[in-house]
């Protein structure tokens, strides 16, 4: 197994203790470690452990916990705390995240840092409470109105629920941009050992010289996304675009497994990548040359590793006349599939296996699909 790039983790100085933790709780501990000063929540399954856990922990730590009257209120409370320069977070699950979209658009427009956790469930509508990946488009395309981007981090283990939540706060502050942690109901409910940071995490030192905390000794500041002056809005959007280009250049994260000799390359994220990894290992045991690319950032999307791999697969087909292909596995009807197809750009075939809201992909099903492709 080869790992070319890993999620950046906080450096550790001594052998770390492993703690058995539920995914949703790992998010809470990550937020606490990252110095989250305010959390605003509203009940929805399957993320209810987050507000319940933080209701106790945040208060013990003298930080802000508040159960809002709605998801709309919660995201706007996050907006307020971000305006005031605090690290703030909200969490919800798919239908609740839909309600937050207006607020997320305002956060993006006003360039405010915030962390939004989506423990996805099946949709559309109320759907059901089992894990799903149906919100890929909503998270990666912006989701609310206007031309904006969220940074989207997607964990595939309870450890990453912890690590990526910490990273989310740092990236939010660094770029003054909303960051979405796109998890799912399976990860949220899963118990796994987590190695927490044994040294206290140092939030990146960034001066919030834009925050509103009263104009003592300085000129008054304003935070707004309304730009009515001739040309001002377009200029603002170009400036945002420049920031997005910088994020695309600096923040792409992914892991690869068994890519070196792979002829069938799975692309999967989150829980589907976890299942896909198992399927890959079984397939390898049966002699199939299977590899896996696992995006950790869904936006910015790791398109280069996919297009580079497409080039390599194409040359294998050319020189050895072997069948090569990508196989995208998702718990939806094919959303990341579109981004993979764009990156592959027709060089080799892109197959898809997915199950929409209510379905959970299994190793056996993926294995079956691999066998089918290889025939």
């Amino acid at each position, binding site marked *: 197994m080869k790992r070319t790039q890993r999620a950046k983790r906080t450096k550790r100085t001594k052998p770390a203790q492993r703690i058995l933790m539920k995914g949703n709780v790992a998010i809470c501990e990550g937020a606490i470690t990252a110095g989250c000063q305010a959390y605003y929540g509203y009940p929805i399954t399957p993320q209810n452990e987050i507000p319940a856990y933080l209701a106790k922990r945040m208060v013990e730590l003298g930080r802000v916990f508040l159960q809002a009257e709605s998801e709309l*209120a*919660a995201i706007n409370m996050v*907006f307020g705390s971000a305006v005031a320069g605090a690290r703030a977070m909200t969490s919800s699950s798919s239908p609740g995240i839909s309600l937050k979209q207006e*607020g997320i658009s305002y956060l993006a427009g006003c360039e405010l840092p915030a962390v939004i956790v989506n423990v996805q469930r099946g949709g559309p509508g109320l759907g059901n409470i089992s894990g799903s990946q149906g919100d890929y488009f909503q998270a990666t395309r912006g989701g609310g109105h206007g031309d904006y981007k969220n940074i989207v981090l997607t964990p595939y283990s309870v450890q990453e629920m912890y690590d990526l939540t910490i990273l989310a706060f740092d990236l939010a502050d660094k770029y003054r941009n909303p960051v979405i942690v796109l998890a799912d109901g399976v990860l949220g409910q899963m118990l796994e050992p987590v190695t927490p940071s044994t040294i206290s995490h140092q939030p990146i030192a960034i001066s919030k010289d834009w925050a509103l905390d*009263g104009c003592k000794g300085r000129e*008054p500041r*304003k*935070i707004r996304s*309304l730009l009515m002056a001739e040309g001002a809005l377009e200029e603002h959007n170009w400036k945002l675009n420049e920031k997005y280009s910088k994020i695309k250049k600096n923040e792409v994260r992914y892991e690869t497994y068994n890519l070196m000799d792979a002829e069938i390359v799975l692309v999967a994220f989150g829980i589907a990548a976890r299942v896909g990894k198992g399927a890959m290992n079984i397939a390898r045991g049966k002699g199939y040359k299977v590899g896996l690319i696992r995006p950790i950032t869904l936006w910015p999307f790791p398109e280069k590793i996919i297009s580079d791999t497409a080039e390599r697969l194409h040359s294998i087909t050319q020189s050895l006349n072997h069948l090569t292909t990508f196989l995208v596995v998702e718990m939806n009807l094919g959303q990341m599939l579109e981004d993979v197809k764009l990156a592959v750009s027709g060089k080799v075939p892109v197959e898809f296996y997915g199950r929409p809201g209510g379905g959970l992909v299994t190793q056996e099903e993926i294995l079956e699909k691999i066998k089918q492709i290889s025939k």
Partner: protein
Amino acid sequence: MKKIFSRPESLKETQHLYCPGCGHGIIHRIIAEVADELNIREKTIGIAPVGCAVFAYDYWNFDVTEAAHGRPPAVATGIKRVLPNRIVFTYQGDGDLAAIGTAEIIHAANRGEKITVIFVNNAAYGMTGGQMAPTTLIGQKTLTTPFGRNAERDGYPLKICELLSSLEGVVFLERTGVNSPENVLKTKKAIKKAFQNQIGNSGFSLVEVLSQCPVIWRMGPVESCKWIEKVMVKTFPLGVFKDTNRHE
């Protein structure tokens, strides 16, 4: 020579975009005077609404943020909870506060958020050209009630002070007007009290200000002031609806 009257420090020297005869300018100035008198300019954070007063951040000389339509009380909550020593207020119109933001205002009030709310009631949506507001009077003609507001079809004017007065988290509610010099002075007294309550950390305070809107009402400025006095106060009587003067 002794200076006896000047522009408050909390008000920027800039031209307002409001229509002739509009009440916003008076209310903005009252807030600025109060901020000066209470010496809170440097620790005040205002929240401008969606609506005519969205440009308030260009007029006040202290920190101001915008908020999505209806959400200022939630934004104020998020600011005040992390900066409990600052003075946080929302400035909202009737569409913002009493239609789309009804949930936010009721729950911020019910939690007893230690914020100040200035609620400007002109019985119509101003910025979008004069549609029916939740506070539009029965029989009042607007763009979306061309035959007059009909209770059967459109329901009744929403009385926010009366509605909020039953909530335990609320310490101060007063309805005033800015249609006469006497009422302007009363409004200033009420707004000052609403800010003093926050300085004293006592709880949620709201002042509802009946404000003239001549262009939308298709009236002259003087006629508009008279309309408040003769017609609007029948539905929205002026006065103090709650004053617990609770100090912790």
